[in-house]
């Protein structure tokens, strides 16, 4: 339970970090360390070099810029949790963060680390999927941007090259009045969710849904949008039956089998949690509670 030997590098600038990535073999970037450190302790990973990003300048910020939330890769989850801007305009992020680990891990864990680790159950990865966030990556040839839909290429594998690092992520803003909910099922508070659902809704004054984003996490190799649900509810004034019926389509989504739960259970959770997320989001949007149980 001790990290294997490695060489340690703590660059001060992004360009120095990129240069190190380009010149060192078998190097790993260390961000908040809440996933990499356990993996090192277990010796699941045995890098020859650790490039610590904690002393790199300019990677920790939360800025609201032209209707976009720009977040530096090394911004701690805690700082997002306590951000007034996040709470006011991206409230689903606040709700999701309260389910990310615990205070002690959020104090260290970073958004860039979460996105690059790319756990299929990770709340911030689900939000980036649901918002169609844009990831900024720095490499030897400067910066490039990756739409989040193209970010995951395989299980826990982001589409960044070995000599690139994520410097920031941008979340677009939804209407000032929008509905939102992040719900998940985990065996214990703070555990990785077995399955989660994130919902964003915009509507008109008659209660009609004009725009919807529904993301299911913990199912497949990465969180994915429940497009069938989004299409079924957009343009509708929802009823309990509409949400219930639309969310049944989540049972067809691809799901993994593992020690925590079989695929069929995850598919069941996806149908239930997406419905609950939509009910909660719609109640926040319109004040109409469609969740009343029949008995």
């Amino acid at each position, binding site marked *: 339970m001790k990290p294997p030997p490695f060489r340690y590098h703590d660059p001060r600038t992004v360009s120095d970090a990129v240069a190190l990535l380009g010149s060192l073999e078998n190097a790993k970037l260390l961000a908040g360390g809440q996933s990499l450190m356990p993996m090192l*302790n277990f010796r699941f990973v045995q890098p020859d070099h650790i490039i610590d990003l*904690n002393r790199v300048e300019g990677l920790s910020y939360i800025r609201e810029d032209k209707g976009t939330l720009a977040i530096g890769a090394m911004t701690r989850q805690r700082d997002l949790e306590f951000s007034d801007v996040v709470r006011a305009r991206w409230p689903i992020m606040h709700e999701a963060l309260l389910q990310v680990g615990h205070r002690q891990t959020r104090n260290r864990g970073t958004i860039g680390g979460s996105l690059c680790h790319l756990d299929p159950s990770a709340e911030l990865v689900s939000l980036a999927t649901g918002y169609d966030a844009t990831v900024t990556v720095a490499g030897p040839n400067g910066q490039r941007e990756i739409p989040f839909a193209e970010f995951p290429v395989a299980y826990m594998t982001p589409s960044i090259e070995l000599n690139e690092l994520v410097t920031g992520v941008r979340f677009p803003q939804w209407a000032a009045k929008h509905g939102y909910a992040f719900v998940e099922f985990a065996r214990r508070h703070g555990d990785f969710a077995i399955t989660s659902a994130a919902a964003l809704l915009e509507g008109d004054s008659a209660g009609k849904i004009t725009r919807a984003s529904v993301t299911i996490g913990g199912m497949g190799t990465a969180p994915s949008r429940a497009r069938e649900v989004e299409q079924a509810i957009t343009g509708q004034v929802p009823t309990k039956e509409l949400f219930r019926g639309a969310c049944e389509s989540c049972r067809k989504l691809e799901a993994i089998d593992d020690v925590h739960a079989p695929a069929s259970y995850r598919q069941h959770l996806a149908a239930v949690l997406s419905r609950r997320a939509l009910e909660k989001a719609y109640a926040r949007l319109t004040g109409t509670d469609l969740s009343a149980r029949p008995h």
Partner: protein
Amino acid sequence: MGEKRKIALTVNGKRYEEEVEVRVTLADFVRHQLGLTGTHLGCEHGVCGACTILLDGRSARSCLMLAVQADGHELLTVEGIAPSPDKLHVLQQCFHEHHGLQCGFCTPGMLTTLLEFLRDNPDPTEQEVRIAISGNLCRCTGYQNIVIATLDAAKRMRAEAAAS
């Protein structure tokens, strides 16, 4: 031996300058090199919370940090919580009075976690206390007495703050 680095940090108000192997975790450094064995190691992968310390006033799992990362920072471990060798901190006193510990293994992590929590939230609800310690495993108390002790400590700390 692997690569070593010189680091300087403050632990419980005392300045240390030490040479440390870069792969050594902060928890092992504090325990083995500084001899502060009050910080306990349970799981060594960030689940049990026993090794929680305060880094610049914020709780962190010291098994999930490298000692070199603490260079230039300020640490508080369980040894630094009491105001003097013969006087416990109010939170410690409440743990004592309410039987908030049995074997004591989780206690250092509980105390550091709750110290930060009560500073941020001096008047918590029972539910908030339970969420605050959700990242700290205790196998003896069933948490009930820890929660009672914390709520009492919060009350006494508020009274102290109001009196001063």
